[in-house]
């Protein structure tokens, strides 16, 4: 009886874990951004981001219940306090459904950067924003 109860609790935990663990396959220390329809989880390489050096992003885009699966994602970044964006445009590939890789990003100044993910599915776009401070 006791044994059974433990097993059952384990099951519940695993199920809850599956719901929150978007981007589990990315491994490492992920940053997670919650939007109304999607969750984005990403890692950067190198981590942390070095000012003035290119970095890449690996990300998973997870649809919440009943929302269409993401077809593509656009990634950009800007420094709202300085009113400028990046000097580079990220290129994006998708190694498998729901997983993307962005290359060629570069933060050329220290300070606050807003990293935006525009998730496109069924003709609609949802923007998720991750705010970072780099030194």
């Amino acid at each position: 009886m006791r044994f059974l109860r433990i097993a059952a609790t384990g099951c519940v935990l695993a199920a809850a874990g599956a719901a929150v663990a978007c981007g589990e396959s990315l491994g490492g220390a992920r940053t997670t951004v919650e939007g109304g329809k999607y969750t984005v989880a990403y890692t950067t390489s190198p981590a942390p981001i070095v000012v003035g050096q290119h970095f890449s992003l690996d990300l998973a885009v997870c649809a919440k219940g009943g929302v269409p699966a993401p077809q593509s994602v656009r990634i950009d970044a800007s420094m709202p306090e300085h009113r400028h964006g990046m000097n580079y445009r990220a290129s994006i590939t998708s190694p498998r459904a729901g997983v993307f890789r962005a290359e060629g990003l570069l933060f050329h100044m220290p300070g606050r950067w807003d990293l935006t993910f525009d998730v496109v599915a069924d003709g609609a776009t949802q923007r998720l924003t991750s705010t970072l401070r780099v030194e």
Partner: protein
Amino acid sequence: MASARQLAAIALVAAAVPAIAQAPPPVTFTDAEVRRILSLGPWPPPPVVDPSNRVSGKAEAIAFGTRLFADPRLSTNGAIACTTCHQPGRAFTDGLPRAQGLARVDRNTPTVNDVGGQRWYGWDGAHDNLWAQSLRPLVDPREMGDGVAHVAAAVRTHGDLRERYVAVFGRPPPADDEVVAVDVAKALAAYQEVLATPRTPFDDFRDALARGDAAAMARYPQAAQRGLKTFVGAGNCTACHLGPRFTNGEFHDIGIPFFVEPGRVDPGRHAGIRRLGASRHTLTGPFNDDPVRAPGTSTRHVSLEHRNYGEFKVPGLRNVARTAPYMHNGSLATLRDVVRHYSDLPEDRLHADGERILKPLGLDRYGIDDLVAFLETLSAPLPRP
């Protein structure tokens, strides 16, 4: 009861008296300032090897490049060498506001010290590698030449050049002029990669700060310490002049006029990105010797923006006291003029729709002296005669 005005007056006197009677208090840095100071080193950096240049780092190529750099036979009139403008005795600059070759050039001659390993070359970043930047003056009619044919012919016809070419590249100069000229540029690049500025008083301070050695830190002049505090603190200079070379390697508009002469402007980075796109001599082109082409990331991803108009590359500041005059057009004669520029910044001249980073520092005379004193410590003291 004392009025507010009386209290303020007492406070003023109290503040003023010790300042006059005693030495100014020692400079202290916040944690954030300390982190920024540490990120301006260590120095020197590890040696650069350029995978896009198959002779990078090779002793024979460096020796050949050393000679080529001073050889006027590479110019069409036989009178101009790289050293005409990049003079070794002047920290590889020429002391002129704008360079003078076969004709007058629109821009100031930058140093070629610490030039290896940059992402972009030229004030407009029209080149993504050092050998392409080294080829440009040879084929630019305002600087040394009129095309690759003259360079290739010089290597083929002068026995000494031919012999060294064969020793470095392992074959006689081929029939294709462009291939020979790019090889010459690669030898020139190999030489320039080893030109490095020595350690400076700032580096000694920075390393002392890193190990918490107060006695060694105290040897760095107080004025330079105050100037350094402005540089990493209120002055926000490290927004752009960051890392051991004091540059983020990118492009900004700091309100230097970009008129070359009435009616003609230097579009800076905007034209640089267009020239990059039109060049065969990039890391994404056929002359990159790196079989995996990994370094082409910047060129593949660079994006042309309206704001690039009038932006110029952030120059590194090592050895800056030796490279006057300053800015892409040599329009500021001294470091004091540069600091005054940042202090008074003509905000109306900064593009109204442009980025918002700089604001006038409003330094007084002493603040200006301190920032200049700091910038002067970025050069090694000259050897005593």
